[in-house]
């Protein structure tokens, strides 16, 4: 059973629907005991970091997520869930976050350009991810596959060894990070067609081991 963390950060049913299409049993829950009992946990979310951290602290789920990260249980962060796994986010006049992976989350700078054209923020749409290090989550994904992104802030891990995927958008940023049983992506696998579903399917079978 995969438990999807419900902390009132946007509509979480899309991840559940994607898992249902793969016939993977899942439950959307805000209960710590249910999350701790699950075989695997997905920590999704859209919205702003400040509000997300307030909800996590208010419900005590912040401690629960840290516990799961330490437990060895496979844990997948998606989008905002990925961002709040870092130590801080520049969003909402610097939000202190969960600190599970060293580093921060930064705003795309003004004036980014590609081929001479100014880039829009949010980074919205399909982009490639250059995967590094053969993480089991990305098994069977071709190099030219693309994933759906929508975000204005990007992960900036302190340690390059935590990066398992990178994406170009005016700058090169970490679009997938991993540490032991935790793997976290900035894009939305549940909205990235067949290859996104493949990542969720891989997660449903991953044992949480990854040797960097």
């Amino acid at each position, binding site marked *: 059973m995969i438990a999807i963390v419900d902390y009132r950060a946007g509509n979480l049913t899309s991840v559940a629907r994607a898992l249902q299409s793969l016939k993977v049993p899942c439950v959307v829950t805000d209960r710590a005991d249910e999350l701790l009992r699950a075989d695997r946990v997905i920590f999704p979310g859209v919205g702003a970091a400040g509000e997300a951290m307030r909800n996590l602290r208010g419900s005590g789920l912040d401690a629960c997520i840290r516990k799961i990260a330490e437990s060895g249980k496979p844990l997948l962060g998606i989008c905002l869930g990925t961002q709040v796994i870092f130590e801080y986010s520049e969003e909402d006049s610097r939000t202190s976050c969960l600190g599970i992976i060293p580093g921060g989350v930064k705003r795309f700078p003004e004036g980014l350009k590609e081929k001479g054209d100014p880039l829009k923020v*949010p980074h919205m749409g399909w982009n490639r991810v250059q995967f590094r290090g053969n993480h089991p989550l990305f098994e069977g994904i071709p190099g030219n596959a693309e994933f759906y992104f929508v975000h204005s802030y990007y992960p900036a891990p302190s340690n390059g060894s935590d990066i398992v995927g990178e994406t170009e958008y005016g700058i090169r940023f970490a679009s997938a990070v991993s540490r032991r049983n935790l793997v976290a992506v900035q894009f939305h696998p549940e909205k990235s067609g067949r290859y996104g579903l493949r990542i969720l399917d891989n997660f449903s079978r991953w044992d949480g081991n990854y040797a960097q």
Partner: protein
Amino acid sequence: MLSKRIIPCLDVRDGKLTKGVKFKGNIDIGDPVDVARSYYEQGADEIVFYDITASSEGRDIMIDVVKRVAETIFIPFSVGGGIRTLEDMRSVILAGAEKVSVNSGAVENPKIISDGAVAFGCQCVVLGMDVKKVGKSAKIPSGYEIVIQGGRKYMGIDALWWAREAENLGAGEICLNSIDADGTREGYELELTHLIATNVRIPVIASGGAGRKEDLLDVLTTAKADAALIASIVHYGTYTIAELKEYLSGNDVKVREIW
């Protein structure tokens, strides 16, 4: 590097497509869920549903369509048409749409943009703009005016001003429809698209006028649109989405090539 998006638009009335969609082999399909699945499998980057239902019973049918689409396709999709309140937005998003498009509802009550952005996030709120070329004047300095009711009612609002205002209010994206080009199949309104796309910092989807594959190339390069909305060009089987993408890719436009 971000890909330019190709987005088929489906008009729905009372839960059925208003015009059948013909795929190769000329089979006419009227169920929006089946057609959405087919475009998903053919490589659409996103899908737009436009609900032209007038009755409230029809609205409930649309919510059911949205739910079934959300169980079937795993790419983003948006729903627009008749969205006037935060509750309208909520019901569409809870049914499974990523984005909700507000058009005349936002012209009449711009606060719905900011309320929607606060409640669901900017990325959920698309401003749909219907625009007509009217010539520059003191009141309409860009020469493009906002219209509603399919172009019958002029609102006295400058299109460029409105696009910037919507961005400031928290819209995450603009779907820009030229009423002059819409349905002509003679190409997008490039001047209008360029004007808006280069003067806001949020993505702009160009809409109205696609008839040839060259039209997509023009709007995505010369006019700087971030995405192109298409309808009859694929509904009537003139091109498949894959053929359009192959052409664009061959002309140095970055598109998603595998799906």
